[in-house]
Each structure stands twice: as C-alpha cells, then as structure tokens.
C-alpha cells in the first residue's frame, strides 16, 4: 500500500510553527497541485487547520515521497531552519488509521469535536477540484467520512460539552426547547460571562440584555452580542422578563436571594428560570436553586460537568478505535486488491 502522510499537529508543534506552515484556504488547490510535482506523488491532498497541517499522498516510493513532502513544506513556506523534529509520518495502513482517527475527532485538541470533519471535507474538495486526487485518495477520504459519521452516531464520543460556556448552553437547551424565544440577561461584563453569552447567541438565543457598573463596557459588549445595554440599577425591574441569567459581578454579597426572587417568580407564570452564577464570590444565593422552576448552576458545577463529559469521551476512545480498526482492515484489503 503506497499511501503516506506527513504532518504536524497541536501535540507535535507549538502554535508558532503551525501558523508558519498553515495553508490559506484559497490557495489549497494550487498548493496541492504543486505538491504533486514537488514530492513525485500520483495523488495528493492537504489538510490545513489551526491545529494541524497534513499532506496526504499516493506514491510509488513512499520513503522518497515523505522526504519530498517535508522539503516541500519548508520550500513552500520559505522556512530557513529545519522543522523536521515537529513532523510525524505514517505509511500504508497506519496512514489510513491516522486519517480515520483525525476525522472522528480522536486526534483533536478537544476530543470528539466535529468541526474537523468539515475541514477535511473542504480539503478533499479543494484537492479534487484541482485534479490532484484519484481512485486511492477518493476512496480513502470517502471512507474516512463514512467512518467518522458511523462513530459519531454509534458512540458517545461527541456527547456532552467539554467547555464551561458550552456546558451552560447545553443545559439551557434542556430547559428551553427553543432558545430563540428566550431572553438572556448578562449581569457583569467579565470574560467568562462574555464567552457564555456569545455561546448562547451562537445557538440562537433571542434577546440579550447586558448590564454592568461600567456603562461603556456594558454598551460595548451589548453591541458585540447584538443585544441591548441596561443600567445596572435597572436589572431587578427587567428580571421577570428574562429566562437565562448569567451573573458575574464583583459584588461581595449575593445580589439575587430567595426573598428578591420569590415575587419575581410569581410574575413568570411557572416558566422556568436558568441562573448561571460565575461570580466569585457567588452572586446568587444557593437557596434560590431550591425554588420551584429555578435551575441554578455555579462555576464549580459547570466545570465539574465539563470534566465529567471529557472523562466520558475518553472512555469511548477504545470503542472508537475498535470500530476504526475493522474499517481500516476492509479498506486495506481493497488497496491490496487494486495494487494501490
């Protein structure tokens, strides 16, 4: 089997090296064509993301091709010194296994992330349009897409978010079916509340209200999120309208207590309320979480869920590798039968 991959990723190379060797999306097709000639390849494809650059090829002599691919990376990006210690290389069956694992998100910085599959599809489309692929790489990439899809739907490798902001969004989606109809209030304008609000907005959260003691900062964040700023002293008056509250103030005492929340909950007509308290010290009295229709999570809760989700994904790795091995066997047989 004459497949070979040469590349580097977030584990083998620091970001400084990765960004020097990255290929702009627009020039991917042209770069793939140049790679064909430079490394004496019959077929080629280049995957370039913020976390990895990988060159795939089919060659009569894989050892010579691998050397040519390394040289090409240096030459194309005009790198003076040697970056060889950062590269890894897989040939034959190992090359197939590597691509299948990358596609399934097993080799990603965030285990099980799904964005990589789209990026591989883009890379393959660019190579195909440039006429750089043939029966071998067509088969290899198409089978890697099928394997990734199968693994996603038959294992829990993509289940459960692994970042605090996304865990908060995931919880919100299990309290409110349609986030578009929900109103979010951000109290305090710290980095974490901003990240959480952005994550909610990216999943379609409807209205976003931002209030902070620093009015300019609140207005700037509101503008970034496409929301509206409100005066810090006005948040209690708006509170009954909101469904999700992200609180991260520097207040020394809880600003939301059961005494304040009780009358407001009556105005909500049994609609649930999701309180995300990421302030330290905490902004929301823990007793609020015991109130009917109130769901309260603090920073520790969210971090713990993120860690547990990551641990659960890690437990799925063995199952995923077994599935991949079966598919690699089948594909390797096909390559042997077709003398590729």
């Amino acid at each position: 089997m004459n497949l070979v991959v040469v590349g580097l990723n977030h584990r083998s190379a620091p970001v400084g090296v990765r960004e020097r060797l990255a290929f702009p999306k627009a020039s991917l097709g042209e770069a793939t064509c140049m790679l064909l000639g430079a490394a004496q390849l019959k077929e080629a494809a280049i995957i370039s993301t913020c976390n990895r650059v990988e060159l795939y090829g089919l060659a009569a002599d894989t050892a010579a091709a691998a050397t040519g691919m390394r040289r090409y990376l240096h030459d194309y990006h005009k790198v003076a010194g040697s970056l060889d210690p950062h590269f890894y290389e897989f040939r034959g069956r190992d090359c197939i296994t590597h691509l299948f694992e990358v596609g399934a998100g097993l080799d990603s910085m965030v285990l099980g992330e799904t964005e990589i599959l789209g990026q591989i599809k883009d890379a393959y489309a660019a190579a195909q349009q440039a006429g750089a692929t043939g029966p071998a790489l067509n088969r290899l990439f198409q089978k890697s897409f099928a394997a990734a899809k199968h693994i996603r739907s038959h294992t829990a490798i993509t289940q459960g978010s692994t970042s605090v902001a996304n865990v908060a969004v995931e919880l919100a989606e299990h309290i409110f079916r349609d986030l578009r109809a929900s109103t979010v209030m951000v109290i305090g304008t710290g980095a974490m509340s901003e990240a959480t609000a952005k994550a909610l907005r990216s999943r379609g959260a409807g209205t976003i209200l931002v209030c902070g003691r620093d009015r300019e900062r609140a207005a700037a964040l509101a503008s970034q999120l496409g929301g509206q700023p409100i005066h810090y002293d006005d948040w209690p008056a708006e509170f009954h309208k909101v469904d999700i509250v992200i609180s991260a103030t520097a207040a020394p005492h809880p600003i939301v207590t059961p005494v304040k929340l009780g009358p407001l909950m009556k105005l909500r007509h049994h609609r649930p309320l999701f309180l995300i308290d990421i302030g330290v010290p905490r902004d929301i009295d823990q007793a609020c979480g015991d109130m009917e229709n109130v769901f309260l999570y603090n920073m520790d809760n969210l971090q713990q869920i993120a860690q547990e989700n990551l641990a659960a994904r890690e437990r799925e790795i063995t199952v995923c590798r077994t599935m991949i091995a079966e598919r690699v066997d089948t594909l390797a047989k096909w390559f042997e039968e077709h003398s590729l």
Partner: protein
Amino acid sequence: MNERFCLWLAVGFYVTASALTARRLQRGLAAGTLHHVNVAVVVAGFLLHTLALVLRGQHLHRCPVTNLFEVQVFIAWSAILFYLLIGPSYRVSFLGAFTAPLVVAVLVTALLAPIDIVAKAPKKHSAWVETHAAIGIVACGALALACVVGLMYLVQERQLKSRRPGRLLLLLPAVDQLDVIGFRLLAVGFALLTIGMVGGVVAHRIVGACPWPKTAWTLVVWCLYGALLGGRVMDVWGGRKAALGVIVAFIFTLASYWGATWLAK
C-alpha cells in the same frame, strides 16, 4: 391466531422496543440513533395489538369493552396510538422509551390477572354505549401518555436540579417542552373524557341506568382531571406540581376503575 396470542406477540415487540431504548440509554447514544428501528418495532407491536382488538370485536360482535381485560387492552392501545401521533410531530425523543414499559405493564397485568371474565348475561347491545365507552377509553390513552410525559418531566427536572446531570439529560427533551406537551395531552384527554361522559348520559337514558359505582367513578375522575386542567389554565400550578398531578391522577384512575368494576359486580 387468537387475540391472546396476538397480544403476547405485541408485548414481545413492546419489550423489544424497551430493551432497544435501554441499550441506547446505557450507551448514551444520541436520540436519533436507532430511533427509527425503535419506532418500527412499536408500530409492529401496535399492528398486532390492533389485530387482537379486531379479533376480539369480531368474536363478540361488538366493541371489545365488555370487561376489565378488554378495557385495559384498549387503554394500552390508545396510549400507543397517542404516542405514535405525538412522538413524531413534536419530535419528542425517548417518549416511546417511557410509554412502552407502561404499556407492557398494563398488558401483562391484563393477560395474567383473572379479569377476562365473559359476562353471563351480556348487556344489551347499543352503539351509543359502545361509542361512549370507546371515547372514554381513548381519553384514558391520552391521559396515560400525559402521565408518561409527566414522569419524563420529573426525571429531567431531577437531573437539572441535581447539578450533576447524567446521560439522561442529553437524551430527554427540554423541561418546558415536556410541560407544554403534558398540558396539551391533559386538555385533549379531558375534552374526550367530557364527550364520553355526555355520550354516557345519553346512552344510559336509552338503554337503562349504569351501575352507581361506575357513575360515581366517572364523576370523580372527571372532576379530578377538570381540577388539574383548571389549575393549569388559571396558572395555579405548572411544572413539577402539574407533572405530579397527572401521574397521581392516572394511577388513581386505573386503581379506582378496578375498584369500581368489582363493586359494580
């Protein structure tokens, strides 16, 4: 093939659906995985269930609602019917997972308990009485499903309240969606119950009085669900209390129906 054999086969399909769901839950798989297989298995069970009712009806030459066994089988059938109507349209993941075990419990109880007793002197055949009874039982199917949705609400709410939610959180629908579906099923069930009850008044004017325990039972159940629905509409309760209400009301309905039937004898 007799109706009891069909029913046991249907139970087999419903048990298979429950086992498939348990497998999905155990593996923490996405709601979509094996969903179609699960629905297909439930549909196969439902077809056999329907065939059993048709065979019993042909044997009796009337709607099969003459004894406790038939009523239970009919209620289980109605619950599956509502599941098949509601599940796909609301895209409620895992509704079948909670419905199938309940239906299995109701059917197995009916098949094993000595309640399939043929009346010695069959009541006078009346389309009015049969229609009234059938509507009442279909209402019970909607209320059974409301009970299932209420149970799902409580499970999901408990997950969220615990602040350490497990896999179930990702697999069950959002609590606000469950709350809305539960309310709609309660409304549909109550409307059908009301129609059935009015039909009953008309029917028994034609064919004679109904035994008082059944009349009393019908009134109590109607008032109970009326109060639950009224409380929801007037915003007296919702969420957890409403979910608990429909669960308790359905258990009471089933248990008291057994009691009323024995008393009526």
